[in-house]
């Protein structure tokens, strides 16, 4: 009984450790970028400067060798603090 038990549990332990190492990110990315609509800009710190909201877009990219590669997919870059629609400026009144 103990033999079967420890065979199953040892397999689970080894498989989980192996999977964690196998799926870890290979590269150490220095900075992340986001698509502004016309170009790429530094994303800043996640949670401080921006958040990635769920969507079908790409939130952030990595940059290497002149190529921007999607990093955080299935999400949308949302800068913090300016998520609400900007209010319209008050109309100027002419002084007479």
């Amino acid at each position, binding site marked *: *009984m103990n033999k*079967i*038990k420890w065979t*199953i*549990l040892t*397999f*689970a*332990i080894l*498989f*989980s*450790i192996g*999977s*964690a*190492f196998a*799926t*870890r*990110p290979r590269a150490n990315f220095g900075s992340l970028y986001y698509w502004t609509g016309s170009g790429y800009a530094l994303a800043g*710190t*996640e*949670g*401080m400067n921006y*958040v*990635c*909201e*769920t969507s079908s877009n790409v*939130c952030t990219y990595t940059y290497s060798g002149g190529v921007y590669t999607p990093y*955080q*997919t*299935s*999400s949308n870059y*949302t800068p913090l603090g300016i*998520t609400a629609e900007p209010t319209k400026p008050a109309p100027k009144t002419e002084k007479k």
Partner: protein
Amino acid sequence: MSKKQVTLECICALLILLFLYASISKFLDFKTFIDQMNNQPLPNSWTPFLVWSIPLLEIAISITLLFEYTRLLGLYASLVLMVIFTLYTGIVLLHFFHYIPCSCGGVIRNLTWSQHLTLNLFYIAILVLGIILQHQQRKSFKPNYINNKHSLV
């Protein structure tokens, strides 16, 4: 080894697989994990506490699931943790927060929030089964000293 015992071992193995994988993945890419925690719609002041407590708790639960004496405690702790994760996933899906954060992390980053919820519910179901089986096993378990008490005299 009965079918029930094998089922219980498989349930514990699945839980260890999930918790150990999740915790080691977090430690292997700790900076990303901190960023992801900051990305969640929770106060950022909680991040230093959560980034250590969650993976350490997952490892502790995995250890308790290995041994017979601590297994029931581990199963209940797993259930509490999975219920908390599921409630959080449900709250996110119900648009309780002002935005829906990305569900990025480890190989599970490919799952959507709905798929996360399905996975969590599956784990809750097998956890309930595991707790029932563990209770049954404890009831049927008779320690050797009870059977051999006359030999001790």
